[in-house]
């Protein structure tokens, strides 16, 4: 290889192999031969002056698995993974084929795969080149398939790598690792090469000879792009190849790039930038997925249900960005293992603690400070991760205008996750979570709420094909409101809902074509819907307590991922859910065919403890299918049905701290919904750009809306104040997403409508004469842009732009004089809209230097929330004061808000 006496100067910036080859050919006159497809993910950034060709290529391919060979005929062969033997090249290819050269449009010369050769070659002692022999060794390798299973872990932290794709070389068959980094792959006996690709990790491969079923654990390295200057894009065909529709996965890296108010990386706010997800406004804990109500989202933190995922009136999400690893939102194809909510599942997964060494990070922001520590308890076996956040936002409230100066707010959240490996086949995971909020908004009334979750999971691997996950835990949510302003009326109101659950999930890799998942779960609700107590000695408030409610929600499910061919796959799932409303409880009965009011109450029946008062249940269908038209283009369709047995009762637009949950009972039916969806998925530019279009149509039955003037707090017969409505929602969602490169991010546009209808004359009240009316969260046009541009490895900027139609409101249409003042007469419900919403946020991220070995790494984030300072209307209202009516538009964050955040990692 003693070539390249001619000295050349190069300057490549993210250059493709074509650009590199053309440039070098011009400068050296050498001919380049390579397979363009093998190099599609290579980008070269290199600046060299007066160096021989060999040195240039050496640097360009440093730390990659690309190789080159230069022949005496001035031909250069570029290969991937297998180094070409130079002597082989001499005269091996006829001169005729070299005519193609780089100038030829078609790919030059196909460099053969050297799998055979590599075996003979004494490999460098790297893991990639090592041949692993799996199973009981036999002399002659039989035919047929065997199963290889194992974990994929981060070599540095020992953390499992979730969603890594494990594929056989030259085959479309492959699977993704599950939430524990576990994979089970069916492959033919004999020699195989397995490619492992995961987002943020360096691609790697393993060579195995399979004799029988066996295990292979694979450790992968984090892709430190900052130092390599050669970025190989990970396998991004997941969106095209997965069978699910309407599922989005985001890792914490992309979440942190989105500018957030006060600089706090915010899981829920990022969810709001996804197509099909809206919220009624800025100060709300809830989000609406495809026309569903805010309580129709199942929000899971490491499998624990979080009832109120927000802090500080909804300005922050209650998930600690330093602990969260990734989130997954299911809008359409909700896996059969999930149930109990109609609209979506938001699955938030925390990181596992570092199993090798102690690390941590801390952040200082305008409003909150964070600290997290993680490390091994027993090295490589047991690790923990602890994260805590707290606020010191009171100082900010003090700066508000006088009318808010008596306000106060505080919150904290704590996470503790422990993972322990008992042995190869058994793992234990513990998750603990507490969040707490207390605030007072310039009144004598204080509010507090708190989530508490604890869960234990035991993962057991029976064999390569079957593993199970048994989980038990308790989820608890409570709030209290206390008022001491008037000593006679001083009160304290407590609300609490808790659920104790146990479930067993099994995954069985039946055959290369079938992966079965099945399981059973049960959940005991205990709900205290309101407990009113006098506060203070002089209070005359009569203690009033709603009778606690109990119910059992159980389910059984079976699902099959069936790969008919490598291009056609189905997920077919069936879930049967069963709901028992349990005693002790007193149930009111109402006269048939009459509106449920206190006047039509005819009877009450008391039931004893654990007596089944009412049973609801039924099958839920979860079906989706995917057909690949080409490798990067697929169509998918799906149909889903879901049932929900717990309801959030609210007559406010936003979820407010005093909304109550209610279990289905003989008078309140469970909600039922179904959805049909269809999608097209196409990737461009070697899968670096993802696009998709999805349409859906959804029906909702027995969604609860409130009667006019409903009293929802401490109401002993809440059924008299609510109405069953029917809903329909439909929409189309466009998404364009780019995950790699200097510019990355996503942009989406959604057109969607959501309507409700209450046309039962026996309900006592027709809303809008029984016609369809837009739901509170019906916002037809939604546009989002979330982008990040990386100037250098230390500086990047992020921009976030949101536009949406204003939400529906009920407006006054006439005025009249009554009770000493002008009053307004309101239109039918939700017939008008607030002005359109527009907001743009901007942030600059500055990272400290990138030396890997230093004690601390620090980053700064500064930016502006609501850059244009637009006064977006949160709500409008009309109020009479001093004898006249004035309309007001209420804005939250009515100005540009600058922020700064400092983070340190150690």
């Amino acid at each position, binding site marked *: 290889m003693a070539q390249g006496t001619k000295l050349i100067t190069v300057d490549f910036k993210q250059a493709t192999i074509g650009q590199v080859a053309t440039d070098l050919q011009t400068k050296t006159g050498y001919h380049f031969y390579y397979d363009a497809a093998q190099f599609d993910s290579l980008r070269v950034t290199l600046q060299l002056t007066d160096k021989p060709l060999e040195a240039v290529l050496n640097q360009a391919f440093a730390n990659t698995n690309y190789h080159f060979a230069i022949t005496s005929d001035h031909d250069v062969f570029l290969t991937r993974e297998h180094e070409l033997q130079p002597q082989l090249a001499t005269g091996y290819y006829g001169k005729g084929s070299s005519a193609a050269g780089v100038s030829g449009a078609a790919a030059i010369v196909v460099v053969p795969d050297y799998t055979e050769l590599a075996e003979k070659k004494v490999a460098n002692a790297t893991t990639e080149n090592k041949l692993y022999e799996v199973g009981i060794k036999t002399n002659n390798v039989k035919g047929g398939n065997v199963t290889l299973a194992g974990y994929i872990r981060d070599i540095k932290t020992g953390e499992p790598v979730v969603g890594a794709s494990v594929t056989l070389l030259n085959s479309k068959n492959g699977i993704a690792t599950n939430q524990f980094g576990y994979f089970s792959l069916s492959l033919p006996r004999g020699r195989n090469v397995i490619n492992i690709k995961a987002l943020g990790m360096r691609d790697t491969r393993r060579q195995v000879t399979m004799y029988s079923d066996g295990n292979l654990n694979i450790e992968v390295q984090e892709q430190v792009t900052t130092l390599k200057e050669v970025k190989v894009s990970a396998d991004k065909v997941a969106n095209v190849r997965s069978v699910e529709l309407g599922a989005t996965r985001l890792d914490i890296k992309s979440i942190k790039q989105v500018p957030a108010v006060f600089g706090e990386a915010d899981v829920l706010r990022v969810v709001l930038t996804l197509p099909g997800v809206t919220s009624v406004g800025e100060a709300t804990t809830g989000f609406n997925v495809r026309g569903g109500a805010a309580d129709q989202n199942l929000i899971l933190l490491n499998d624990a249900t979080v009832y109120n995922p927000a802090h500080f009136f909804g300005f922050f999400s209650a998930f600690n960005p330093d602990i969260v690893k990734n989130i997954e939102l299911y809008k359409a194809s909700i896996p059969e293992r999930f149930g109990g909510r109609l609209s979506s599942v938001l699955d938030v997964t925390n990181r596992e603690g570092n199993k090798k060494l102690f690390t941590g990070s801390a952040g200082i922001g305008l409003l909150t400070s964070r600290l997290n520590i993680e490390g091994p308890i027993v090295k490589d076996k047991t690790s923990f991760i602890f994260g805590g956040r707290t606020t010191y936002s009171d100082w900010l409230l003090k700066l*508000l205008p006088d009318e808010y100066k008596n306000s106060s707010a505080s919150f904290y959240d704590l996470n503790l996750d422990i993972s322990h490996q008992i042995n190869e086949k058994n793992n234990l995971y513990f998750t603990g979570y507490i969040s707490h909020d207390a605030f007072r908004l310039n009144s004598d009334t204080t509010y507090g709420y708190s989530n508490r979750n604890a869960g234990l999971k035991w993962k057991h691997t029976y064999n390569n094909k079957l593993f199970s996950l048994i989980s038990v835990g308790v989820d608890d949510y409570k709030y209290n409101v206390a008022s001491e302003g008037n000593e006679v009326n001083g009160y304290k109101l407590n609300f609490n809902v808790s659920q104790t659950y146990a479930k067993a999930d099994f995954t069985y890799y039946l055959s290369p074509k079938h992966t079965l998942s099945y399981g059973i779960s049960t959940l005991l609700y205990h709900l205290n819907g309101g407990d009113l107590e006098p506060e203070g000695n002089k209070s005359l408030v009569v203690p009033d307590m709603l009778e606690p409610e109990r119910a059992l929600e159980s389910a059984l499910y079976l699902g099959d991922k069936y790969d008919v061919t490598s291009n056609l796959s189905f997920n077919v799932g069936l879930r049967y859910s069963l709901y028992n409303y349990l005693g002790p409880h007193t149930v009111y009965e109402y006269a048939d065919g009459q509106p449920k009011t206190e006047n039509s109450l005819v009877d009450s029946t008391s039931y004893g403890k654990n007596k089944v008062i009412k049973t609801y249940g039924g099958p839920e269908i979860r079906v989706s299918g995917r057909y690949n038209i080409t490798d990067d283009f697929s169509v998918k369709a799906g149909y889903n049905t879901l049932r929900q047995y717990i309801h959030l009762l609210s007559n406010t637009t936003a979820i407010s701290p005093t909304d109550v949950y209610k279990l289905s009972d003989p008078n309140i039916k469970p909600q039922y919904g179904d959805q049909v969806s269809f999608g097209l998925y196409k990737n461009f530019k070697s899968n670096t750009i993802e696009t998709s279009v999805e349409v859906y149509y959804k029906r909702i039955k027995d969604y609860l809306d409130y009667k*006019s003037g409903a009293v929802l707090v401490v109401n002993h017969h809440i059924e008299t104040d609510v109405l069953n409505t029917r809903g329909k929602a439909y929409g189309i969602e466009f998404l364009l997403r780019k995950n790699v490169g200097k510019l990355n991010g996503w942009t989406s546009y959604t057109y969607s409508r959501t309507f409700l209808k209450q046309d039962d004359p026996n309900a006592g009240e027709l809303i809008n004469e029984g016609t369809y009316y837009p739901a509170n969260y019906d916002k037809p046009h939604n546009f989002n842009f979330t982008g990040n541009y990386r100037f250098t490895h230390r500086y990047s900027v992020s921009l976030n732009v949101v536009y949406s139609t204003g939400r529906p409101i009920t407006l006054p249409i006439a005025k*009249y004089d009554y009770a000493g003042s002008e009053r307004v*007469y*309101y239109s039918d*419900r939700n017939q008008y809209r607030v002005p359109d919403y527009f907001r743009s946020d901007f942030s600059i991220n500055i990272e400290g230097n990138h030396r890997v070995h230093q004690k601390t790494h620090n980053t700064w984030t500064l930016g502006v929330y609501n850059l244009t300072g637009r006064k977006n209307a949160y709500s409008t209202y009309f*109020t*009479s004061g001093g004898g006249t009516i004035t309309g007001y538009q209420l804005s939250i964050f009515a100005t540009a808000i600058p922020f700064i955040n400092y983070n340190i990692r150690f």
Partner: protein
Amino acid sequence: MIKNRFYIVLVVVIAVCTWQCKKVYTPNVVSSAPNYLVVEGVINTGADSTTIKLSRTTNLADSAKTIKELGASLYVEDNTGRRHNLTEFGNGLYKSAPLNLQSTQQCRLHIITKDQKEYVSDFVDNIKTPAIDSITYTITGTGAQFYANTHDPTGTVKYYRWDFDETWQYVALLQSFYKYDAINNKIVPRAGENIYNCWKTNPSTQVLLGSTAGLSQAVVSALPVSYVDESTGKLAHGYSMLLRQYGLTKEAYEYWQKLKKNTEQLGSIFDAQPSALTGNLHNVNDAKEPVLGYISASTVSVKRFLIGHNAIPLYSQSYFPPPGAGDCTGGTINLLPANTFDARLKAAMSSGNFTLTDDNGSAGVLIGYNYASSECVDCRVKLLGGTNIKPSYWPDVL
């Protein structure tokens, strides 16, 4: 160092901007305003007259405050079928003689409008309103907060509504000892006529509701009725409140509650949405026509409260409302030169914008007469609707 500077900058930036704000909002929504009948009033079943007010809804953008409904005939029907007519009083008001319906259990209101549409309310229970125990106040900040207190010894009345008329005494800035006789173009002494002390009466503008439904005793304690800030000037001399208390049924209470929620208690982040408001009146022939208002029937308990300024421990610059000395224009009409006196007097006083105050002289010699803008001298001009006739209940010395 950089870090500290950033923090200081940010603190300043946040201090000048509010993060929640409201601004006036005028939607351009309604082109054709509905024209619904609005019925307001309480059937007073006690020994006082019943007044019902009829009006129509108007377009939001209309500057006309209300359209009165004239020429209707109304009567109250009790559960024995007896009718008690109301007579039109003008301005959309219809009044009856005292009904004295203490013995009846239920009654309802009939309305036949000029265009021969017939409306009727539901039969409503006759509530015997307990007496008002007391009206109390506390000094809160720069004003006085007034409270109503009542209880029902029988424990039957659980829902209450209040309204009130407030009357306060106020004075002009300057006293007037002379008046202008426009007919003769002469100055005459203002003997025995007071335009310095006035009284003004305003009705309440808020819906005031109370409930003892959640309490172990039927006691309404310190229900906030009205907050009067000293800057209104209402506390500067004397303040009186005539509070009326109405017992309500649960349905009536819920109606008023909704009305209050819809039109007064909106605008915070966690507000309930406005809701449809259906009263208890209907068009006999068209059940779908909305009729606004709720008719209830009860006796009315009345109590007057009166407080002098000496009893209120408040005093500040803003105690007396404008105009102050700096706001008054005026001048002097000198006697000399005598030949132009009449012309000068006429020129100054004929516009009617000025009122004579006192004379101007030195060492017992009269030089001329002073005058000032009427709003500084005549209390009836200072506040429109004010009267210089002392109410009968107002004591001479407060």
